[in-house]
């Protein structure tokens, strides 16, 4: 840990807020991506099933 002197508070809070916000954004994007993929797969499966039953 480098010695930050009298600006320690400013530097640490700036870095902390930035890293927190970026990680939150990454986490949110990832979560949304996973949810969307799962929902889409379920819907595709339903559509495929419907297509088959229509043929029969």
């Amino acid at each position, binding site marked *: 840990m480098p010695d*930050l002197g009298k600006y320690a508070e400013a530097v640490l809070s700036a870095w902390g807020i930035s890293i927190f916000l970026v990680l939150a954004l990454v986490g949110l994007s990832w979560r*949304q991506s996973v949810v969307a993929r799962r929902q889409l797969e379920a819907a595709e499966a339903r*559509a495929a099933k419907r297509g088959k039953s229509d043929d029969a």
Partner: protein
Amino acid sequence: MTKMERTKQSRDAWNWLWEWANPVKFMHLTGKALPWVVGLTLVTLIPGLIWGFFFTPEADKFGSSVKIIYVHVPSAMMAINAWAMMLVASLIWLVRRHHVGALAAKAAAPVGVVFTVIALLTGAIWGQPMWGTWWAWDPRLTSFLILFLFYLGYMALWAAIDDPDTAADLTSVLAIVGSVFAVLSRYAVNFWNQGLHQGASLSLDAEENVADVYWQPLVLTLVGIVALFVALVFIRTRTQLRRRRLHALELRERMADA
């Protein structure tokens, strides 16, 4: 060669680029590119930040507060670049009707907002010890505040409209008009408060500004934040595309049931 043939040929020459505009190909291409972009983010952003935080000396005038530039400058740069990218993507949607354009613009907006907020907050945190105040109506800070409002309006408009194509059209129109007014605001704000504060961002003295000790890690973080932005936009656009497909499938399901 006639003019028409030439245009056609030049269009063929750009085909590789427009392939990205086809949703299926976009999913395919980004699926392949994503690990590489994420990898690039990791190998540039993290070392850049570590270098900037642990291994840079204190500046004469600013002490250790100089280390804030490694989070402030990259996010400030991307706050503006994200809007520029949204403008280009909106134009692609309006002119060529490629859905990927509109959805990429939609996907980029929250990323741009986060970068704008980081730039504003770190700017304020830096301003407190430097200017003795959290907030000064400095032209640069003020411009970012206005940019933040533009982002909010853009995202609110997307959220308010139900029909996806209508939303894409209207937000694109807003992005274009908003861009013009954003530039105009920048000029107006400059005029209104003629640079009571320093010119260059976080004005390091000239020789310090070019000093390699600060530049090298900064360049690394700048590259890293661009890679991060691209990766996030890829991921978020893929989510948007999947949602659109899901929406279409559900509509079809409902129609088939009816």
